[in-house]
């Protein structure tokens, strides 16, 4: 459990499993007949974090903050604009497609929508077995056996292998997605809103399954979600993102007890609590909407909605600093 300590930088002794620094993804906006670049969407604008072995890092933020792009850029499903992604010390962004392949086995993804992320023309067994074929790990009877055991592990029956995605419920489809991600015995799984499309009672089943699998296989998760209560539940450490940047990163208890960034405070206070007895003394209601990532505000991206912004916040972008051991924040005032 040493790896669960609250270090945002490399833990002492063991290097982190994943080390992301200064990662950027700017999507060009093309216009006109010659498709000239007319500007950029600054989806991910320089983020840094680490994930240790057997650890879950939660990445929260509102729609359009760049959290999903961040996940896909780490996997190189989207090529980054700048920055470095190191898996077990190897820089992934410089690898060729062929060199990248063994590292793809190490990193898998579970998508949000269990309806569109499974091929409707493939049986559930073929979907889960496909990675084994592509990476030439198993074939024939051996493959069938491995797929069957994966099915059992995620709570599906082996006779479900013959069925097609439309024959499953949302929660079962998400289990298929999890089995597919597990097939290559990865060390890191990126969950991109893996439970947001599910009903409340099914959500709990999938969260519990993911936590059990982490124990059993020693997995690390990058858990991307907008639901703070879910992230809070499953994560060891949490990174809060706003308009392409991480504004705060710390262990979940510190984040909850002592949030430092005004955006984190507002986010925490906005989450409704299912207990009418709990009356909050102060709810911070942010004014306005999240600005467009095409023309993010100058200085601190949050200053347009920040209740405590100072003149310098509109000019100078705050550094992402470690203010207490393991507690990183990007705010001039903290």
């Amino acid at each position, binding site marked *: 459990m040493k790896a669960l300590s609250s270090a945002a930088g490399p833990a002492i002794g063991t290097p982190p499993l994943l080390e992301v620094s200064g990662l950027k993804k700017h999507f060009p906006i093309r216009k006109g007949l010659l498709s000239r670049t007319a500007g950029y969407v600054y989806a991910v604008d320089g983020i840094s974090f680490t994930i240790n072995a057997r650890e879950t890092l939660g990445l929260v933020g*509102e*729609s359009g903050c760049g959290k999903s792009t961040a996940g896909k850029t780490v996997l190189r499903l989207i090529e980054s604009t700048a920055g470095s992604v190191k898996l077990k010390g190897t820089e992934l962004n410089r690898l060729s497609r062929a060199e990248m392949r063994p590292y793809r086995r190490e990193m898998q993804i579970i998508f949000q929508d269990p309806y569109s992320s499974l091929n409707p023309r493939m049986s559930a067994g073929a979907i889960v077995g496909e990675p084994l074929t592509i990476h030439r790990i198993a074939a024939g009877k051996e493959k069938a056996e491995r797929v069957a055991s994966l099915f059992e592990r995620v709570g599906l029956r082996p006779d479900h292998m013959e069925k097609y995605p439309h024959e499953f419920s949302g929660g079962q489809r998400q289990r298929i997605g999890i089995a597919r991600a597990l097939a290559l015995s990865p060390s890191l799984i990126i969950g991109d809103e893996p439970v947001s499309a599910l009903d409340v*009672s099914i959500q709990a089943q999938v969260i519990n399954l993911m936590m059990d699998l982490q124990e059993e296989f020693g997995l690390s998760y990058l858990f991307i979600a907008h639901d703070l209560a879910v992230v809070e539940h499953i994560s060891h450490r949490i990174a809060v993102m706003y308009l392409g940047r991480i504004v705060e990163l710390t262990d979940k208890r510190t984040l*909850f007890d002592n949030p430092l960034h005004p955006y984190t405070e507002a986010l925490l206070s906005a989450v409704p609590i299912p207990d009418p007895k709990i009356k909050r003394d102060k709810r911070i209601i942010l004014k306005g909407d999240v600005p467009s990532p095409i023309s993010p505000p100058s200085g601190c991206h949050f200053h347009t909605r920040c209740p405590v912004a100072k003149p310098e916040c509109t000019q100078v972008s705050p550094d992402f600093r470690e203010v207490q051991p393991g507690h990183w924040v990007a705010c001039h005032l903290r």
Partner: protein
Amino acid sequence: MQHAQAGIGHAQPSPLDEILRIENLKTYFYSREGVVRAVEGVSYGLRRGQTLGVVGESGCGKSVTALSILRLIPNPPGKIVDGAIYLEGKNLLTLPEPDMQALRGNDISMIFQEPMTSLNPVLTIGQQISEAVILHQRLSAKDAMNKAVEMLKLVRMPEPVRRAKEYPHQLSGGMRQRVMIAMALSCNPKVLLADEPTTALDVTIQAQILDLMRELQEKLGTAIILITHDLGVVAETAERVVVMYAGKKVEEADAAVLFANPQHPYTQGLLASVPRLDQAATGARTRLTEIKGIVPSLHNLPAGCFFAPRCPLADNQCRQEYPALRDMGRGHMAACWKAGQNSKGVA
């Protein structure tokens, strides 16, 4: 159905200060695979100025109930086959269609989940809000536009005069939902049906919209039926709560009572399965309580209690006979054979 013993549920609307009462509503859909009983004998009442939360998971019939109130069920395939819906004592299900039209958007209006698809993309915001006012309050086009701007001001839309001339795609999700609210409240309705009004919105925007709805309710005294799957939203806004499962009402109580002492194992399970931010503060990573299995298909409902296959307390009686709603005192109703025997927390 069976709750006549509780003193309510007669054919006449109750003498309480109820503005709306749904009585034994049955809305079915006729499909090739058979009859889907989307709403199967649901009754509940809404008091003046009150917020009633209707909770349940997808397919439980909570939205179909709301659409039935406005008689907006597409027919075919859907049909209201039985029941009554009283608005101030008047049964809406027997009204001729022109009377119903005069009532929609005027006495009862609705806010939908997805503000983008519920707004007309080729009309300006101002025109869309004016439409209802011109129709129901017979204002001139000019006066109606002034009223629209006034409504936009009421829902705290920034720059209301300019925004009234804009189209839905020019607005953010939160602003579109403000427009929906402005439109719904423009004729000062007695009842507002809000179907997942904040589900498509981010938490910080959700907080803004819920805050606005609360403020407007205080100001205008509108009674609200808030349909949602989010127990947190219900806990913060509703005074009374109805829990639905597979087309039936399984529990109803005042919000404080329901959250403190849920009687139906489904309600108990739902409350236990939601991760809670206020409890995460301990730093521990514990397992959530699960409700086993999946929501049954409405094509193929189990015999007996619909929740029995997933219920930790189910016995033979539960698997054979659907339990009637029973009053557990002070208007706390639950449809469960085991209700009252177990106090709290099945786990």
